[in-house]
C-alpha cells in the first residue's frame, strides 16, 4: 500500500515540480551560453550580470515552489473534497503523513540539487576551475592545529540537521493546516492564524532566551564557560551540532504526533 501511495504521490508532485526543475537547469544552461559570448563590452557585462541575477532568482524560486507545492498538495489531497477519497483508502493516517512528507522533502532536495547543478553549469569552465583551486588551496593550508576530521564530521552533522530541518519545515505547515481544518469555517485562515501564533511564540521565546543569555554573559560564570569551550572546542562543536539534530528530530516527532492524533480523532472534512 505504501509503495502505491508513493507512486501516486510522486506522480502528482512530479507533474508540478518537473517543469520547475527543468526551468532551474535551463536557466543555468542559458547563463552559461550567455557567458560563452562574453566580452568586455559594457553591454555584455550587463547581460551577463542580469542572467546571473535571474539564475539566483530562479534557484530560490525553485526551492520556494517546492515548498509551496508540497504544502498545497497536503491540503488539497487530504482536506479538500479529495480527502473523501484519500481517507477512505485502506491506508493509515501515519502512512499518509509519511509518504507526503518524504515526497515533499525529496522534491525540495531535488530543487536544491538542481539549483546547485545549475550554478555549477553556469560557472563551468574557467570560473569553476579557479574556484575549486582556491578552495582546495585553503583546505590544504589550514592552520596545523585545526583537526580536519572533526571539521568533516561537523559538516556531516550539520547536513543531517538541515535534512531533518526540511522535514520539520514541511511538518510545521502540515501541523498548521491540520489544526486549521478542525475549524468549521475559514479553515485556511485558521491555519494561517495558527502559524502566526506559532511565530509569535517562537519570537517571544527567542527574545527571552537572548535576554537571559545576555544577562548570563555578564556573570563571572560566563568566563569559565568560555574557557571550557575554548579548551574543548571539538566536544562542544559536536554537542552543538548533534544537539541541533536531536532538537529537530524532536520537533518533527511532536509535529507528526499532533497531525496524526488530530487526523485520527478530529478529522473535519467539509
Amino acid at each position, binding site marked *: 500500500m505504501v509503495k*502505491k501511495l508513493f507512486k*501516486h504521490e510522486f506522480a502528482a508532485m512530479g507533474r508540478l515540480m518537473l517543469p520547475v526543475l527543468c526551468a532551474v537547469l535551463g536557466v543555468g544552461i542559458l547563463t552559461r551560453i550567455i557567458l560563452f559570448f562574453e566580452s568586455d563590452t559594457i553591454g555584455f557585462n550587463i547581460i551577463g550580470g542580469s542572467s546571473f541575477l535571474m539564475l539566483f532568482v530562479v534557484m530560490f524560486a525553485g526551492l520556494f515552489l517546492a515548498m509551496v507545492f508540497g504544502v498545497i498538495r497536503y491540503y488539497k489531497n487530504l482536506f479538500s*473534497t*479529495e480527502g473523501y477519497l484519500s*481517507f*477512505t*483508502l*485502506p*491506508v493509515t493516517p501515519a502512512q499518509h503523513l509519511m509518504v507526503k512528507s518524504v515526497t515533499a522533502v525529496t522534491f525540495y532536495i531535488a530543487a536544491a540539487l538542481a539549483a546547485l547543478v545549475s550554478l555549477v553549469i553556469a560557472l563551468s569552465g574557467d570560473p569553476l576551475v579557479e574556484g575549486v583551486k582556491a578552495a582546495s588551496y585553503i583546505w590544504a593550508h589550514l592552520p596545523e592545529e585545526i583537526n580536519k576530521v572533526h571539521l568533516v564530521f561537523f559538516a556531516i552533522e550539520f547536513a543531517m540537521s538541515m535534512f531533518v530541518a526540511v522535514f520539520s519545515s514541511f511538518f510545521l505547515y502540515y501541523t498548521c493546516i491540520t489544526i486549521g481544518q478542525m475549524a468549521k469555517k475559514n479553515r485556511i485562515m485558521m491555519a494561517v492564524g495558527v502559524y502566526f501564533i506559532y511565530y509569535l511564540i517562537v519570537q517571544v521565546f527567542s527574545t527571552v532566551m537572548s535576554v537571559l543569555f545576555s544577562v548570563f554573559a555578564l556573570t563571572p560564570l560566563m568566563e569559565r564557560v568560555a574557557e571550557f569551550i575554548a579548551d574543548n572546542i571539538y566536544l562542544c562543536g559536536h554537542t552543538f551540532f548533534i544537539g541541533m539534530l536531536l532538537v529537530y528530530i524532536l520537533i518533527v516527532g511532536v509535529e507528526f504526533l499532533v497531525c496524526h492524533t488530530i487526523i*485520527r480523532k478530529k478529522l473535519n472534512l467539509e
Partner: protein
Amino acid sequence: MSELLRCEKLTKCYGTKTALDEIDLCLESGKIIGLLGPNGSGKTTLIKLINGLLTPTSGSITVCSEKPGPKSRVNVAYLPDNSYLNNWMTVKKIVDYFKDFYEDFREDLAYEMFERLGITPETRLKSLSKGNKEKVCLILVMSRNAKLYVLDEPIAGVDPAARDYVISTIINNYNPDATVLISTHLISDIEQVLDEVVFINNGHIVLQKTVDQIREENGKSVDDLFREVFRW
C-alpha cells in the same frame, strides 16, 4: 446472510450537540437499504462513522466484523455526496488509482460502463459535465466488488434520466453477499428499489422495516409515511 454493519449504543457528540444518540442498528447482506431522514438527522454522521472518517464518542460500531479503519475499508465502497475527483487526472489515471488501492476493483466492468456513456479512457475529468462527473464517481464505486456500498445522496442534483441510470446501475450490480446503503431524501424515486428502510431523526433510529411491510401496515408509500413522520 451475514451481518455487515452493527452499531451498539453508538453515540457521537460535537461539543454540546449530540448528532447520534445511542444508536442500535444492524444491517444484513443481500439487501438494498435506504437511510432516510431530514437534513441534520445524523445520516451523514453515521456514514462518516462507518467509513472511519469520525470516531465515536461512545458505543461501538463494527463494519464487516472490523472496527472502521484500513482493514474495514477494503470491504466498503463509499460514494460521498460531492465529487472527490482530481480534475487534472484522466479517466485512465483514476481507474489505475482505484485498481492500485482496491484489489476488488473490476476494471473491465468500469470501462464497459464508461463506454456506454461515451467516456473514453483518455477523457480528462475536468472536461466532463457535472452530471457525467457524478456518474463517473458512481461507476468507480459500483465497479468495486465490495461487501458494503455506502451511497450518500446518489440521485440528488441529478436529472431524471440520470436518476434512472443510477438506479439501474445499482440494481444491475446487485450481489447477494453485499448490501447497498443509500442515504437520501428523494424517497419516491428510489422507494421501489429498496428492500428495507431506516428512518433516522435527531440522532435516533425511528424505524427499520421492509418497504412492503410499511406499505401493508400503513396503506401508504414510504414517501408518504416519511412526510407524515417528519412533519414539521
